[in-house]
């Protein structure tokens, strides 16, 4: 039971952080380099999950993937199924929930890359695409790694959204945090303690690794630092 939930949670966290890299790199680059006047609106939207209660997100995700919404019907017409109470549904909810934790460090790191280097590369004839891969990404890599680890850790500890859209199915949507909650409510404190301690140690090890690496280099950990 514990191993099943742990494996599921790790699978979810890895998948979500990989997807968030695919979204976070272009979005972070755009946020760091765009001069569009409406950019602040996008920044606000990206940061929403930090301040919104998970219930708000969970509620809207549940409605959106339900059979009554256009998205839910579109998904059903393509796959013949529904995202509610499935692992894929959790992935969708978690990507939204952890979005700022990936995008913000990436955008901050990209923004801190010295502009003169980019100008120099442009005068030497490098395309923006080439400049991104050869200059922005290597110099901003600490921020990318921070974004990856934070979105991974944040997804590990997710609770509210999963509670609202998961349906608590062992092997499919029962994550470690849900299992802990269940065990506490059933007064199985010993088991709850074992799982909680495990999660605590995993999260601590991840963050210790991150901050330890940061000490050795001048890494940007948060957008506001």
């Amino acid at each position, binding site marked *: 039971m514990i191993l099943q939930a742990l494996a599921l949670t790790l699978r979810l966290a890895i998948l979500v952080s990989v997807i968030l890299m695919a979204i976070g790199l272009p979005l972070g680059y755009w946020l760091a380099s765009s001069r569009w006047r409406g950019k602040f609106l996008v920044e606000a939207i990206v940061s929403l999950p930090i301040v919104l209660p998970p219930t708000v997100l969970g509620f809207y995700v549940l409605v959106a993937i339900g059979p*009554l919404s256009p998205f839910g019907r579109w998904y059903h017409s393509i796959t013949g199924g529904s995202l509610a109470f499935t692992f894929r549904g959790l992935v969708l909810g978690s990507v939204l929930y952890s979005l700022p934790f990936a995008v913000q460090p990436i955008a901050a790191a990209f923004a801190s890359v010295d502009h003169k280097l980019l100008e120099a590369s442009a005068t030497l004839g490098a395309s923006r695409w080439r400049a991104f891969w050869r200059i922005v990404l290597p110099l901003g890599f600490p921020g990318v790694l921070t974004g990856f680890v934070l979105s991974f850790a944040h997804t590990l500890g997710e609770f509210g959204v999963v509670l609202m859209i998961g349906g608590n199915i062992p092997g499919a949507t029962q994550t470690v945090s849900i299992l802990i909650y269940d065990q506490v409510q059933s007064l199985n404190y010993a088991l709850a303690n074992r799982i909680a301690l495990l999660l605590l140690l995993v999260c601590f090890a991840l963050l210790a690794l991150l901050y330890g690496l940061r000490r050795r280099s001048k890494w940007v950990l948060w957008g506001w630092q």
Partner: protein
Amino acid sequence: MLIIGVFVTRAFAGEQLAIAAAADLNYALSELANRFEIASGNKLTLSFGASGNLYSQIQSGAPFDLFFSADEDYPKKLAGAGVADASSLSIYSLGHLVLWLPSSSPFDPQKLQMESLTQPAITRIAIANPQHAPYGRAAMAALEHYGLKDKVSGKLVFGESVSQAAQFVQSGNAQAGLIAMSLAKSPAMELAGRFWVVPSDAYPELKQAAVIVSVSKHKKAAQEFLDFVLSTEGAATLRKYGLTPPAKP
């Protein structure tokens, strides 16, 4: 507004009762609480949840005055542990399990009854989590009774409480649900679907009991509200929501 709010709080003379109630009582008890507030001048705050969750909260010292469970076991256990007053323990109603399908469903629960659940078009069946919710346990017992447990176990999704299970099926995310009749008869669900009452021999009786919490400082007011729920007027309201009076001992 704020000034008026402060004024009202000051002028308020009655007592403040904190009540923990099983999720199936969401509508029935709210209605009774409103009437009691007007009649008695006391103020009631209701917290709904799965009986098992409320039980463990009270066990851990949650400051409730009165606990309405969806079964008899949790209040008995609290009384046994000295956390609740054994003398106040009373059964206030019998709960009933129903099979609920949304009105958009092609199946008629009255006709197909439990066989609805084996239809391929029904891919998700919402029930309350049997670990914390008496209605979840009743649903599992009923599935077993009809020999469906293994056939449909892959379709089950578990709500935190019976009201979350109801929400899962009412929102269409699950295509069928085994939920409390008291929720099926609520205004929000009555028009949204149809139900079939699961015969009471299919699951152990849901004798719903209430008990006064030992740490309560408002035991007299709590007893008054409990008496009101047990009164003819209270029973009539409960019955409106499909919560029938318990058989006389």
